[in-house]
């Protein structure tokens, strides 16, 4: 038996899932192959680790809750994803990536000169009045300006 064949049979060998003929063939190979013996030991150690995992018990009142749900006519949840939902998810992800790329590109490139001018103008302090429109302060300033002109 070659190592490649033994490699496939080591797992069923430790699970006692081989025929007598296969088991004898594996054992004959293991007697002469230290590499496959190491693999057997490692697989056994792995199996031993599972023995240390505790078994969980259903929480208290589980059966009562199932029967109550059945009496209330609660249907079992369905989590299998319809193709349309998968498609919608993919479209949403692509959309978010595309928006990110476009806004990233506009940040790197910067606005056109005309747009830049408009933006600078919109930020100009000239747009701000010294007082809120229609306020008493505004009336007072207007009156003082008229008086100064006189």
């Amino acid at each position, binding site marked *: 038996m070659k190592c490649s064949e033994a490699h496939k049979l080591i797992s*069923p060998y430790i699970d006692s*899932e081989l025929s007598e003929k296969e088991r004898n063939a594996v054992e004959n190979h293991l007697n002469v192959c230290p590499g496959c013996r190491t693999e057997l030991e490692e697989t056994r150690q792995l199996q031993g680790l*599972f023995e240390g995992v*505790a078994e*969980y018990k259903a929480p208290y009142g589980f059966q009562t809750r*199932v029967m109550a749900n059945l009496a209330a006519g609660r249907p079992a949840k369905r*989590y299998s994803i319809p193709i349309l939902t998968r498609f919608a*998810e993919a479209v949403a992800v692509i959309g978010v990536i595309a928006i990110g790329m476009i806004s990233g590109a506009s940040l790197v490139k910067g606005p056109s000169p005309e747009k830049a001018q408009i933006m600078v103008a919109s930020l100009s302090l000239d747009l701000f009045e010294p007082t809120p429109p229609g306020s008493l302060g505004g009336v007072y300033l207007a009156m003082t300006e008229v008086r100064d002109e006189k």
Partner: protein
Amino acid sequence: MTTQSDDLHLIERFKDGDNSAFEELILKYQDRIYNLCRHMLGNAHDAEDMAQDSFIKAYQNLKRFRPEASFYTWLYRIAVNTCLDFKKRPFFESLFRTSDKGEEFVLEPISEGPSPEKELETRQMMHALQKGLAQLSPKFRTVLILREMEGFSYEEIAEVLDLSTGTVKSRISRAREELKKSMTKFTEQKRN
């Protein structure tokens, strides 16, 4: 009376309209189904939800159950598919649920009273096992849980997963190989 004939008797009673027979079936299998869901999903909340769903689906379909099949492998098939469907749930649903990372395994008390070093080593190996299992694909994780934690034979696993025993044999072998690789990787990362 064997377990299978016990189950068939309860199913017959249920089909005749006796709902208490289904309650007896829940009591008989709730720990095993919950344990399976807990290992498949990694946390208590999701495990209880999916174990409940499995019994609800079993209740709804029990009238169509064929007596030539084994009831517990039929029930396990429902539970495995329920957990796998839950794992595949849409991304937006998973945002509003508990983490998929899972919890630490609860270790069985070690009877020989090991040294602190030995206990630490065991804990580290169990941690690596948990991490390794979480990284396996669902099909590998499922066969290992059924084999190692539920103690199913290859034939029973084949029946639960609707596969040939040859496929189960090679899948378990590959799953163990993958698990060993990711555990080694994890322990090496920890050392560095």
